[in-house]
Protein backbone atom coordinates (compact mmCIF):
# COMPACT_ATOMS: atom_id res chain seq x y z
CA UNK A 1 0.00 0.00 0.00
CA UNK A 2 1.21 3.51 -0.75
CA UNK A 3 -0.16 7.01 -0.34
CA UNK A 4 -2.14 6.75 -3.59
CA UNK A 5 -4.13 3.96 -2.02
CA UNK A 6 -4.69 6.22 0.97
CA UNK A 7 -5.91 8.96 -1.35
CA UNK A 8 -8.21 6.68 -3.33
CA UNK A 9 -9.61 5.30 -0.11
CA UNK A 10 -9.99 8.61 1.74
CA UNK A 11 -11.28 10.71 -1.14
CA UNK A 12 -14.63 8.96 -1.31
CA UNK A 13 -15.33 9.84 2.29
CA UNK A 14 -15.80 13.61 1.83
CA UNK A 15 -17.72 13.20 -1.43
CA UNK A 16 -20.15 10.43 -0.46
CA UNK A 17 -20.08 11.34 3.23
CA UNK A 18 -21.25 14.90 2.61
CA UNK A 19 -24.20 13.62 0.57
CA UNK A 20 -25.14 11.03 3.19
CA UNK A 21 -24.83 13.52 6.04
CA UNK A 22 -26.85 16.07 4.06
CA UNK A 23 -29.63 13.53 3.45
CA UNK A 24 -29.70 12.61 7.13
CA UNK A 25 -29.70 16.30 8.08
CA UNK A 26 -32.69 17.03 5.83
CA UNK A 27 -34.56 14.10 7.39
CA UNK A 28 -33.70 15.32 10.90
CA UNK A 29 -34.97 18.83 10.10
CA UNK A 30 -38.14 17.53 8.50
CA UNK A 31 -38.90 15.21 11.42
CA UNK A 32 -37.51 17.70 13.99
CA UNK A 33 -35.62 14.99 15.83
CA UNK A 34 -32.74 16.28 17.97
CA UNK A 35 -30.86 12.98 18.02
CA UNK A 36 -30.72 12.87 14.21
CA UNK A 37 -29.75 16.55 14.02
CA UNK A 38 -26.93 15.83 16.40
CA UNK A 39 -25.81 12.78 14.45
CA UNK A 40 -25.73 14.65 11.14
CA UNK A 41 -23.90 17.65 12.63
CA UNK A 42 -21.34 15.26 14.13
CA UNK A 43 -21.01 13.60 10.72
CA UNK A 44 -20.26 16.96 9.05
CA UNK A 45 -17.53 17.64 11.62
CA UNK A 46 -16.10 14.15 11.17
CA UNK A 47 -16.03 14.57 7.38
CA UNK A 48 -14.35 17.97 7.77
CA UNK A 49 -11.71 16.27 9.91
CA UNK A 50 -11.03 13.43 7.49
CA UNK A 51 -11.00 15.77 4.51
CA UNK A 52 -7.67 17.06 5.82
CA UNK A 53 -5.73 13.81 5.07
CA UNK A 54 -7.88 13.30 1.95
CA UNK A 55 -6.66 16.63 0.57
CA UNK A 56 -3.06 16.08 1.70
CA UNK A 57 -2.75 12.58 0.25
CA UNK A 58 -3.78 14.01 -3.13
CA UNK A 59 -0.36 15.60 -3.25
CA UNK A 60 1.26 12.16 -3.08
CA UNK A 61 -0.92 10.88 -5.92
CA UNK A 62 0.02 13.94 -7.96
CA UNK A 63 3.73 13.32 -7.40
CA UNK A 64 3.44 9.82 -8.82
CA UNK A 65 1.45 10.86 -11.88
CA UNK A 66 3.17 14.11 -12.81
CA UNK A 67 6.06 12.62 -14.81
CA UNK A 68 3.84 10.15 -16.65
CA UNK A 69 2.97 11.48 -20.14
CA UNK A 70 -0.26 9.46 -20.17
CA UNK A 71 -1.82 11.87 -17.68
CA UNK A 72 -2.72 15.44 -18.46
CA UNK A 73 -1.22 18.02 -16.12
CA UNK A 74 -4.19 20.32 -16.77
CA UNK A 75 -6.58 17.63 -15.56
CA UNK A 76 -4.54 17.10 -12.41
CA UNK A 77 -4.38 20.83 -11.70
CA UNK A 78 -8.11 21.23 -12.28
CA UNK A 79 -8.71 18.47 -9.74
CA UNK A 80 -6.28 19.96 -7.22
CA UNK A 81 -7.93 23.36 -7.56
CA UNK A 82 -11.52 22.15 -7.26
CA UNK A 83 -10.54 19.84 -4.38
CA UNK A 84 -9.13 22.85 -2.51
CA UNK A 85 -12.35 24.83 -2.92
CA UNK A 86 -14.46 21.84 -1.83
CA UNK A 87 -12.07 21.35 1.09
CA UNK A 88 -12.47 24.96 2.25
CA UNK A 89 -16.26 24.62 2.13
CA UNK A 90 -16.40 21.34 4.05
CA UNK A 91 -14.13 22.87 6.71
CA UNK A 92 -16.50 25.83 6.98
CA UNK A 93 -19.51 23.48 7.11
CA UNK A 94 -17.75 21.44 9.80
CA UNK A 95 -16.92 24.52 11.87
CA UNK A 96 -20.49 25.87 11.78
CA UNK A 97 -21.81 22.34 12.53
CA UNK A 98 -19.50 22.08 15.53
CA UNK A 99 -20.81 25.35 16.96
CA UNK A 100 -24.33 23.98 16.55
CA UNK A 101 -23.35 20.67 18.10
CA UNK A 102 -21.91 22.53 21.04
CA UNK A 103 -25.38 23.63 22.10
CA UNK A 104 -26.37 19.99 22.52
CA UNK A 105 -23.54 19.41 24.95
CA UNK A 106 -24.38 22.40 27.13
CA UNK A 107 -25.37 21.68 30.69
CA UNK A 108 -28.97 21.65 31.84
CA UNK A 109 -28.36 24.89 33.71
CA UNK A 110 -28.90 26.75 30.45
CA UNK A 111 -32.00 25.10 29.02
CA UNK A 112 -32.58 27.94 26.55
CA UNK A 113 -29.22 27.13 25.01
CA UNK A 114 -29.81 23.41 24.82
CA UNK A 115 -30.20 23.28 21.08
CA UNK A 116 -28.88 25.36 18.19
CA UNK A 117 -30.96 28.23 16.83
CA UNK A 118 -33.05 27.79 13.68
CA UNK A 119 -30.91 30.18 11.63
CA UNK A 120 -27.85 28.24 12.73
CA UNK A 121 -29.22 24.98 11.35
CA UNK A 122 -30.30 26.80 8.20
CA UNK A 123 -26.72 28.05 7.74
CA UNK A 124 -25.43 24.48 8.03
CA UNK A 125 -28.00 23.35 5.47
CA UNK A 126 -27.00 26.01 2.91
CA UNK A 127 -23.29 25.36 3.42
CA UNK A 128 -23.77 21.59 3.15
CA UNK A 129 -25.69 21.95 -0.14
CA UNK A 130 -22.96 24.20 -1.57
CA UNK A 131 -20.29 21.79 -0.34
CA UNK A 132 -22.03 18.80 -1.95
CA UNK A 133 -21.97 20.57 -5.30
CA UNK A 134 -18.31 21.47 -4.93
CA UNK A 135 -17.50 17.91 -3.84
CA UNK A 136 -19.17 16.65 -7.01
CA UNK A 137 -16.93 18.94 -9.06
CA UNK A 138 -13.85 17.74 -7.16
CA UNK A 139 -14.90 14.12 -7.71
CA UNK A 140 -15.55 14.61 -11.41
CA UNK A 141 -12.28 16.40 -12.09
CA UNK A 142 -10.52 13.64 -10.16
CA UNK A 143 -12.21 10.98 -12.29
CA UNK A 144 -11.21 12.80 -15.47
CA UNK A 145 -7.52 12.32 -14.61
CA UNK A 146 -7.89 8.60 -15.31
CA UNK A 147 -10.82 8.72 -17.68
CA UNK A 148 -10.21 11.39 -20.30
CA UNK A 149 -13.26 10.03 -22.16
CA UNK A 150 -15.65 11.58 -19.60
CA UNK A 151 -14.06 15.03 -19.81
CA UNK A 152 -16.55 17.68 -20.90
CA UNK A 153 -14.13 20.45 -21.80
CA UNK A 154 -14.10 24.05 -20.56
CA UNK A 155 -17.08 25.16 -18.51
CA UNK A 156 -18.01 26.28 -15.01
CA UNK A 157 -16.25 23.20 -13.64
CA UNK A 158 -12.88 24.18 -15.02
CA UNK A 159 -13.42 27.76 -13.80
CA UNK A 160 -13.66 26.45 -10.21
CA UNK A 161 -10.61 24.26 -10.73
CA UNK A 162 -8.69 27.13 -12.25
CA UNK A 163 -9.59 29.47 -9.41
CA UNK A 164 -8.63 26.88 -6.79
CA UNK A 165 -5.33 26.11 -8.46
CA UNK A 166 -4.41 29.80 -8.56
CA UNK A 167 -5.46 30.13 -4.92
CA UNK A 168 -3.19 27.20 -3.94
CA UNK A 169 -0.26 28.89 -5.70
CA UNK A 170 -1.02 32.23 -4.05
CA UNK A 171 -1.10 30.60 -0.62
CA UNK A 172 2.18 28.83 -1.27
CA UNK A 173 3.75 32.10 -2.34
CA UNK A 174 2.39 33.89 0.72
CA UNK A 175 3.66 31.26 3.15
CA UNK A 176 7.07 30.54 1.65
CA UNK A 177 8.22 33.44 -0.53
CA UNK A 178 6.42 36.64 0.42
CA UNK A 179 8.35 37.39 3.61
CA UNK A 180 10.78 35.56 5.85
CA UNK A 181 8.52 36.39 8.81
CA UNK A 182 5.34 34.63 7.67
CA UNK A 183 6.56 31.13 8.59
CA UNK A 184 7.85 32.08 12.08
CA UNK A 185 4.60 33.93 12.87
CA UNK A 186 2.57 30.88 11.81
CA UNK A 187 4.81 28.68 14.00
CA UNK A 188 4.22 31.01 16.93
CA UNK A 189 0.44 30.82 16.44
CA UNK A 190 0.72 27.02 16.12
CA UNK A 191 2.38 26.91 19.57
CA UNK A 192 -0.22 29.22 21.09
CA UNK A 193 -2.89 26.87 19.71
CA UNK A 194 -1.02 23.96 21.34
CA UNK A 195 -1.12 25.74 24.71
CA UNK A 196 -4.87 26.34 24.47
CA UNK A 197 -5.42 22.67 23.56
CA UNK A 198 -3.32 21.31 26.43
CA UNK A 199 -4.64 23.85 28.94
CA UNK A 200 -8.34 23.46 28.19
CA UNK A 201 -8.58 19.73 27.46
CA UNK A 202 -5.89 18.94 30.04
CA UNK A 203 -7.73 20.69 32.90
CA UNK A 204 -10.93 18.72 32.22
CA UNK A 205 -9.11 15.45 31.66
CA UNK A 206 -7.00 15.54 34.83
CA UNK A 207 -10.15 16.26 36.87
CA UNK A 208 -11.87 13.24 35.31
CA UNK A 209 -8.79 11.17 36.15
CA UNK A 210 -9.05 12.22 39.80
CA UNK A 211 -6.86 15.30 40.26
CA UNK A 212 -8.43 18.45 41.81
CA UNK A 213 -11.42 16.38 42.86
CA UNK A 214 -13.00 19.29 44.69
CA UNK A 215 -13.97 20.71 41.29
CA UNK A 216 -17.44 19.90 39.94
CA UNK A 217 -17.17 18.69 36.36
CA UNK A 218 -19.89 20.59 34.51
CA UNK A 219 -18.35 24.10 34.73
CA UNK A 220 -14.96 22.79 33.58
CA UNK A 221 -16.67 22.05 30.29
CA UNK A 222 -16.77 25.82 29.64
CA UNK A 223 -13.05 25.68 28.86
CA UNK A 224 -13.61 23.27 25.96
CA UNK A 225 -14.41 26.07 23.43
CA UNK A 226 -11.00 27.60 24.23
CA UNK A 227 -9.36 24.28 23.39
CA UNK A 228 -11.43 24.03 20.22
CA UNK A 229 -10.27 27.56 19.33
CA UNK A 230 -6.70 26.32 19.75
CA UNK A 231 -7.41 23.28 17.58
CA UNK A 232 -8.95 25.58 14.95
CA UNK A 233 -5.87 27.86 14.97
CA UNK A 234 -3.67 24.80 14.54
CA UNK A 235 -5.68 23.33 11.68
CA UNK A 236 -5.48 26.67 9.81
CA UNK A 237 -1.78 27.25 10.49
CA UNK A 238 -1.00 23.56 9.91
CA UNK A 239 -2.75 23.59 6.53
CA UNK A 240 -0.79 26.73 5.62
CA UNK A 241 2.48 24.92 6.47
CA UNK A 242 1.39 22.00 4.33
CA UNK A 243 0.34 24.16 1.39
CA UNK A 244 3.62 26.07 1.66
CA UNK A 245 5.83 22.97 1.48
CA UNK A 246 3.71 19.98 0.36
CA UNK A 247 6.75 18.18 -1.01
CA UNK A 248 8.39 18.26 2.43
CA UNK A 249 5.41 16.99 4.42
CA UNK A 250 3.74 14.48 2.09
CA UNK A 251 6.36 11.69 2.12
CA UNK A 252 7.32 12.31 5.77
CA UNK A 253 6.29 9.27 7.83
CA UNK A 254 6.43 11.13 11.15
CA UNK A 255 4.08 13.75 9.71
CA UNK A 256 1.72 11.04 8.44
CA UNK A 257 1.56 9.41 11.88
CA UNK A 258 0.97 12.84 13.43
CA UNK A 259 -2.01 13.40 11.12
CA UNK A 260 -3.40 9.98 12.06
CA UNK A 261 -2.97 10.79 15.77
CA UNK A 262 -4.76 14.11 15.34
CA UNK A 263 -7.68 12.42 13.60
CA UNK A 264 -8.07 10.14 16.65
CA UNK A 265 -7.70 13.04 19.10
CA UNK A 266 -10.27 15.03 17.10
CA UNK A 267 -12.75 12.13 17.15
CA UNK A 268 -12.27 11.77 20.91
CA UNK A 269 -12.97 15.47 21.36
CA UNK A 270 -15.95 15.46 19.02
CA UNK A 271 -17.72 12.38 20.35
CA UNK A 272 -17.23 12.86 24.07
CA UNK A 273 -17.05 16.61 24.62
CA UNK A 274 -19.14 18.08 21.83
CA UNK A 275 -22.23 15.86 21.91
CA UNK A 276 -24.82 15.11 24.58
CA UNK A 277 -22.53 12.25 25.68
CA UNK A 278 -21.00 14.75 28.10
CA UNK A 279 -24.34 15.22 29.85
CA UNK A 280 -23.88 11.82 31.47
CA UNK A 281 -20.91 13.30 33.35
CA UNK A 282 -22.20 16.75 34.18
CA UNK A 283 -23.77 15.67 37.46
CA UNK A 284 -20.35 14.80 38.84
CA UNK A 285 -20.05 17.05 41.88
CA UNK A 286 -17.12 18.00 44.14
CA UNK A 287 -15.27 14.96 45.46
CA UNK A 288 -17.06 12.47 43.22
CA UNK A 289 -15.14 9.91 41.23
CA UNK A 290 -15.70 9.67 37.44
CA UNK A 291 -16.77 6.31 35.99
CA UNK A 292 -14.12 4.11 34.43
CA UNK A 293 -15.18 4.69 30.82
CA UNK A 294 -14.80 8.47 31.32
CA UNK A 295 -11.32 7.92 32.71
CA UNK A 296 -10.35 5.85 29.68
CA UNK A 297 -11.62 8.59 27.36
CA UNK A 298 -9.76 11.27 29.36
CA UNK A 299 -6.51 9.31 29.48
CA UNK A 300 -6.61 8.56 25.74
CA UNK A 301 -7.25 12.23 24.99
CA UNK A 302 -4.20 13.26 27.03
CA UNK A 303 -2.01 10.57 25.45
CA UNK A 304 -3.11 11.49 21.91
CA UNK A 305 -2.53 15.24 22.28
CA UNK A 306 0.87 14.72 23.91
CA UNK A 307 1.75 12.28 21.12
CA UNK A 308 0.74 14.93 18.59
CA UNK A 309 3.18 17.39 20.21
CA UNK A 310 6.03 14.88 20.24
CA UNK A 311 5.39 13.77 16.66
CA UNK A 312 5.26 17.42 15.60
CA UNK A 313 8.69 18.02 17.08
CA UNK A 314 10.04 14.90 15.35
CA UNK A 315 8.85 15.95 11.86
CA UNK A 316 12.35 17.18 10.84
CA UNK A 317 13.62 13.75 11.93
CA UNK A 318 11.38 12.07 9.37
CA UNK A 319 12.50 14.26 6.47
CA UNK A 320 12.92 12.34 3.22
CA UNK A 321 15.93 13.66 1.36
Amino acid at each position, binding site marked *: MNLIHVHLWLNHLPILGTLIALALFVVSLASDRDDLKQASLALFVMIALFSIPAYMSGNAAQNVLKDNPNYSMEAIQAHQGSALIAFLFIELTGAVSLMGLWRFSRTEKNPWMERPAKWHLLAVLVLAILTSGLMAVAGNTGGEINHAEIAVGPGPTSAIGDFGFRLANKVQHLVVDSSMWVWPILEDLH*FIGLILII*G*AFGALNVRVLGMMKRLPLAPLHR*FIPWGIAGFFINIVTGMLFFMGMPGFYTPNVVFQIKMFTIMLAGLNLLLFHCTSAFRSLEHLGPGEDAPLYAKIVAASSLVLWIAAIVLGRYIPFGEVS
Partner: protein
Amino acid sequence: MAVPIIFKTIEETGISTWIRDSPSIFAYWFILSFHAIGMGLLVGASVVIDLRLLGVAKDLPLSPLKGLYRIIWIGFWIQIVSGALLLIAYPTKALTNPDFYIKLTLIGFAVAIMHTIRKRVFTDSALNESEMMMKGKALAVWSLIIWTGAVTAGRLLAYTYNYLKYDYRG
Protein backbone atom coordinates in the same frame (compact mmCIF):
# COMPACT_ATOMS: atom_id res chain seq x y z
CA MET B 1 31.87 41.65 19.89
CA ALA B 2 34.03 38.60 20.39
CA VAL B 3 32.25 35.38 21.28
CA PRO B 4 33.58 34.03 24.61
CA ILE B 5 35.83 31.02 24.10
CA ILE B 6 34.01 29.13 26.85
CA PHE B 7 31.10 28.54 24.46
CA LYS B 8 33.51 26.61 22.24
CA THR B 9 34.69 24.61 25.24
CA ILE B 10 31.11 23.68 26.11
CA GLU B 11 30.35 22.73 22.49
CA GLU B 12 33.32 20.38 22.43
CA THR B 13 32.20 18.42 25.50
CA GLY B 14 30.82 14.94 24.96
CA ILE B 15 27.30 15.69 26.16
CA SER B 16 26.98 18.80 23.97
CA THR B 17 28.21 16.95 20.88
CA TRP B 18 25.95 13.99 21.61
CA ILE B 19 22.75 16.07 22.01
CA ARG B 20 23.57 18.08 18.88
CA ASP B 21 24.95 15.50 16.48
CA SER B 22 23.77 12.06 17.58
CA PRO B 23 21.42 10.36 15.12
CA SER B 24 19.73 8.70 18.12
CA ILE B 25 16.03 9.45 18.50
CA PHE B 26 16.73 10.12 22.19
CA ALA B 27 19.06 13.04 21.49
CA TYR B 28 18.09 16.51 20.25
CA TRP B 29 14.47 15.90 19.15
CA PHE B 30 13.68 14.00 22.34
CA ILE B 31 14.77 16.92 24.50
CA LEU B 32 12.98 19.37 22.23
CA SER B 33 9.78 17.29 22.61
CA PHE B 34 10.05 17.53 26.38
CA HIS B 35 10.56 21.27 26.04
CA ALA B 36 7.30 21.53 24.06
CA ILE B 37 5.36 19.33 26.52
CA GLY B 38 6.75 21.30 29.47
CA MET B 39 5.60 24.51 27.78
CA GLY B 40 2.13 23.03 27.31
CA LEU B 41 1.88 22.14 31.01
CA LEU B 42 3.46 25.33 32.37
CA VAL B 43 1.69 27.85 30.14
CA GLY B 44 -1.47 25.79 29.57
CA ALA B 45 -2.20 25.48 33.30
CA SER B 46 -1.37 29.16 33.82
CA VAL B 47 -3.77 30.18 31.05
CA VAL B 48 -6.61 28.14 32.62
CA ILE B 49 -6.11 29.96 35.95
CA ASP B 50 -5.92 33.33 34.16
CA LEU B 51 -9.07 32.71 32.14
CA ARG B 52 -11.00 31.65 35.24
CA LEU B 53 -9.87 34.81 37.07
CA LEU B 54 -11.09 36.82 34.08
CA GLY B 55 -14.55 35.28 34.28
CA VAL B 56 -14.50 32.19 32.04
CA ALA B 57 -16.37 29.24 33.62
CA LYS B 58 -17.74 31.43 36.44
CA ASP B 59 -19.58 28.47 38.00
CA LEU B 60 -16.28 26.74 38.63
CA PRO B 61 -15.16 27.15 42.26
CA LEU B 62 -11.87 29.02 42.25
CA SER B 63 -9.98 27.71 45.26
CA PRO B 64 -9.58 24.04 44.13
CA LEU B 65 -7.88 25.37 40.98
CA LYS B 66 -4.88 25.87 43.24
CA GLY B 67 -4.18 22.22 42.35
CA LEU B 68 -3.09 23.40 38.90
CA TYR B 69 0.01 24.89 40.51
CA ARG B 70 1.32 21.35 40.83
CA ILE B 71 1.15 21.04 37.05
CA ILE B 72 2.70 24.48 36.66
CA TRP B 73 5.69 23.45 38.77
CA ILE B 74 6.08 20.08 37.03
CA GLY B 75 6.07 21.96 33.72
CA PHE B 76 8.48 24.54 35.07
CA TRP B 77 11.06 21.93 36.12
CA ILE B 78 10.72 20.05 32.83
CA GLN B 79 11.53 23.39 31.15
CA ILE B 80 14.55 24.06 33.38
CA VAL B 81 16.08 20.62 32.75
CA SER B 82 15.29 20.35 29.04
CA GLY B 83 16.20 24.00 28.50
CA ALA B 84 19.56 23.54 30.23
CA LEU B 85 20.32 20.53 28.00
CA LEU B 86 19.40 22.50 24.87
CA LEU B 87 21.63 25.33 26.09
CA ILE B 88 24.52 22.89 26.57
CA ALA B 89 23.97 21.67 22.99
CA TYR B 90 23.95 25.16 21.45
CA PRO B 91 25.50 27.70 23.88
CA THR B 92 26.75 30.09 21.19
CA LYS B 93 23.50 29.96 19.26
CA ALA B 94 21.44 30.94 22.32
CA LEU B 95 23.76 33.25 24.21
CA THR B 96 24.75 35.44 21.24
CA ASN B 97 21.10 36.09 20.40
CA PRO B 98 19.50 39.08 22.22
CA ASP B 99 16.13 37.36 21.78
CA PHE B 100 17.27 34.62 24.19
CA TYR B 101 17.68 37.18 27.00
CA ILE B 102 14.29 38.68 26.17
CA LYS B 103 12.77 35.20 26.43
CA LEU B 104 14.39 34.48 29.81
CA THR B 105 13.34 37.87 31.19
CA LEU B 106 9.74 37.37 30.08
CA ILE B 107 9.66 33.86 31.59
CA GLY B 108 11.02 35.29 34.83
CA PHE B 109 8.24 37.89 34.93
CA ALA B 110 5.54 35.39 33.96
CA VAL B 111 6.56 32.88 36.65
CA ALA B 112 6.76 35.71 39.21
CA ILE B 113 3.22 36.78 38.27
CA MET B 114 1.91 33.22 38.66
CA HIS B 115 3.60 33.06 42.05
CA THR B 116 2.02 36.38 43.05
CA ILE B 117 -1.42 35.14 41.96
CA ARG B 118 -0.93 32.09 44.16
CA LYS B 119 0.11 34.20 47.13
CA ARG B 120 -2.45 36.99 46.84
CA VAL B 121 -5.45 35.09 45.46
CA PHE B 122 -5.18 31.45 46.47
CA THR B 123 -3.38 31.44 49.81
CA ASP B 124 -5.60 34.00 51.60
CA SER B 125 -8.50 31.82 52.77
CA ALA B 126 -10.39 34.85 54.10
CA LEU B 127 -11.26 35.94 50.55
CA ASN B 128 -14.53 35.02 48.90
CA GLU B 129 -14.79 34.24 45.16
CA SER B 130 -15.52 37.76 43.94
CA GLU B 131 -12.72 39.21 46.08
CA MET B 132 -10.36 36.61 44.64
CA MET B 133 -11.36 37.59 41.11
CA MET B 134 -10.99 41.30 41.88
CA LYS B 135 -7.51 40.76 43.23
CA GLY B 136 -6.48 38.48 40.38
CA LYS B 137 -7.92 40.26 37.35
CA ALA B 138 -5.05 42.63 36.53
CA LEU B 139 -2.45 39.97 37.28
CA ALA B 140 -4.26 37.51 34.99
CA VAL B 141 -4.22 40.01 32.10
CA TRP B 142 -0.50 40.61 32.56
CA SER B 143 0.14 36.88 32.82
CA LEU B 144 -1.58 36.23 29.47
CA ILE B 145 0.30 39.08 27.76
CA ILE B 146 3.70 38.10 29.12
CA TRP B 147 3.27 34.37 28.47
CA THR B 148 2.35 35.18 24.87
CA GLY B 149 5.51 37.26 24.62
CA ALA B 150 7.66 34.55 26.21
CA VAL B 151 6.35 31.84 23.88
CA THR B 152 6.81 34.14 20.88
CA ALA B 153 10.37 35.03 21.88
CA GLY B 154 11.12 31.34 22.37
CA ARG B 155 9.67 30.33 19.02
CA LEU B 156 11.62 33.09 17.24
CA LEU B 157 14.94 31.74 18.60
CA ALA B 158 14.88 29.27 15.71
CA TYR B 159 14.81 32.11 13.18
CA THR B 160 16.89 34.94 14.67
CA TYR B 161 20.25 33.44 15.71
CA ASN B 162 23.55 34.99 14.55
CA TYR B 163 25.75 31.95 15.16
CA LEU B 164 24.71 28.32 14.96
CA LYS B 165 27.97 27.23 16.61
CA TYR B 166 31.13 28.95 17.78
CA ASP B 167 32.85 28.58 14.39
CA TYR B 168 29.73 28.77 12.32
CA ARG B 169 27.80 31.95 11.56
CA GLY B 170 24.17 31.18 10.79
